């Protein structure tokens, strides 16, 4: 944290108040105090309006829709109590999307471990370090639709993957995206390819902020690489790993783009968000879709809360 001001914070507003009468020798008018009180709100207005209009109003509406049978179009909606929630948890085809998230969750775990490995490797002196760093990070910056097309071509029959396997003499018969047992593995693999770079760069940034003297001291003491990792690197990147785990969990619950573009979310590959969007806009079941979204939101808030409890964050004391 930047902490340039160590002394007590001087508040500009009272300072100005003390200043003004001294110069003008006239007590400030009531209008002036009001204006001064309103000043901060003037700066905040735009941000607050957007925040309320596009975050809080939708959340509130969503919760209220979730207790109705609204179709999203007609003017009338009937209160149906918790029917939507009951339907959500009792219809197996609706509940199935949670199961799909597990594939992405497993992929996210792999992604974090691999990112940790490469970040550790590149903290030490390595030839072409910047080149490798750039290569590992770049996929994260690529447009999601382009990534989806790249991998449609990669997985298609006779595409890149099949051709590479043919080079080493393997001729797989299965369709990577057409086989219901494989499709989620293939799609979550794409997600690792795409998002590894962010984890990697975050870990690398945290590792490189460790003072060089610590590494030198460890070297003089004859510590092995593994000891350096356990004793020096791991403790200093714990907060960023905590953050990555949260992002991994909420990310694997809210997967949308890649499966939506690559398989249109058909069959086994349907995720939570695809399901919600389809219910709301294709089947006009706004009530049920809202209930799903509320459940997703509740899960994500719960996970974040648990994580904050487990890993107390020194940044949480932000004013």
């Amino acid at each position: 944290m930047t902490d340039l001001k160590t002394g007590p914070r001087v508040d500009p507003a009272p300072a100005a108040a003390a200043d003004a009468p001294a110069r003008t020798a006239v007590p400030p008018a009531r209008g002036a105090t009001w204006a001064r009180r309103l000043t901060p709100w003037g700066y905040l207005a735009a941000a607050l309006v957007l925040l309320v209009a596009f975050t809080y109003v939708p959340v509130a509406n969503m919760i209220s829709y979730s207790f109705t049978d609204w179709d999203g179009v007609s003017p009338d909606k009937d209160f149906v109590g918790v029917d939507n929630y009951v339907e959500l948890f009792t219809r197996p085809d609706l509940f199935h999307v949670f199961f799909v998230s597990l594939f992405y969750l497993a992929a996210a775990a792999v992604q974090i471990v691999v990112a940790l490995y490469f970040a550790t490797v590149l903290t030490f002196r390595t030839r072409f370090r910047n080149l490798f760093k750039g290569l590992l990070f770049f996929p994260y910056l690529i447009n999601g639709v382009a990534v989806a097309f790249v991998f449609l071509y990669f997985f298609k029959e006779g595409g890149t993957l099949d051709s590479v396997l043919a080079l080493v003499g393997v001729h797989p018969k299965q369709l990577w995206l057409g086989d219901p047992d494989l499709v989620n593995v293939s799609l979550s693999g794409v997600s690792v390819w795409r998002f590894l770079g962010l984890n990697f760069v975050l870990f690398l940034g945290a590792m490189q902020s460790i003072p060089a003297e610590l590494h030198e001291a460890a070297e003089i003491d004859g510590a092995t690489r593994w000891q350096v990792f356990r004793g020096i690197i791991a403790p200093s990147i714990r907060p960023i790993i905590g953050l990555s785990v949260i992002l991994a969990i909420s990310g694997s619950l809210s997967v949308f783009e890649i499966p939506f573009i690559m398989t249109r979310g058909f069959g086994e590959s349907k995720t939570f968000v695809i399901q919600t969007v389809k219910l709301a806009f294709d089947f006009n079941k706004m009530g049920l879709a809202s209930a799903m979204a509320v459940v997703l939101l509740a899960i994500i808030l719960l996970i974040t809360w648990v994580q904050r409890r487990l890993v107390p964050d020194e940044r949480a004391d932000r004013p």
Partner: protein
Amino acid sequence: MTVPSTARAAFDRRERRAALLRPVAVTLKYLSLVAASVVVLLPLLTIFFTSLKTEQEMAGGDTLSPPRDWFNFANYATAFTKGEMLTAFGNTAFILLFSITGTVVIGSMAAYAIERFSFRFKKLVVAAFLVATLVPAVTTQVATFKVVDALGLFDTRWAPVLLYMGTDIVAIYIFQQFIRGIPVSLDEAARIDGAGSFKIYRTVIFPLLKPAIATVVIIKGITVYNDFYIPFLYNPSPELGTISTSLFRFKGPFGAHWETISAGAVLVIVPTLVIFLLLQRFIYNGFTSGAAK
């Protein structure tokens, strides 16, 4: 006296073992790095090759072979004209310009108010922003859609602009951290010279925010350029397509014409690659500071 000598022996043993293992470890390290690079590059390279191939070459089938003519840009021309990529780049540029300008101005003003003023309900305001970071936009889109529709913004380019401005709480934090580092004495000096709060914001605070603005512009720019969900939901008209949604529409008309689809994908990736190569350092810093806050 025995203690140091056994310690020394252990040290020597470890050194010898390390000396033996080091070449193996180094080889494995470079092997893993090269393997990762191949995994990253191979899917992209085949798409690039495909984009330069003719229909006949595609029919020939060999996916991994390089194109016969490295300067066959016919597919790019098709993608650019028939795929309406020019309109798409125009729309994306429009959305980028307004949403980034809006985010920088609105975010820095909000941060200025929070950092430099004391007012009633300040804690509540800060909490409202903080809680909103926990709400993933993807979950509330179903209901946000109704708000956008009610405002009459559905199927206009202003819908994505406003949504991108409204969801950027990270930007406020980045600005807030930065303003905290600017000494209050600078504000006071300006105030003694008779500057009002807006003049202080405009002439003292804003110019000093340049590094933070660079970070926000980069993160925001990449997110907006790559976003698919919002333009897909709010701008269904083809003439309002952004690069993401226009590229998405390639799937229909060009069906099995992978050479055209590949050219479209490469057209979308190249600007990102150029920006990345030019601004590498800023991009790494931007993402590390953006995510940690």
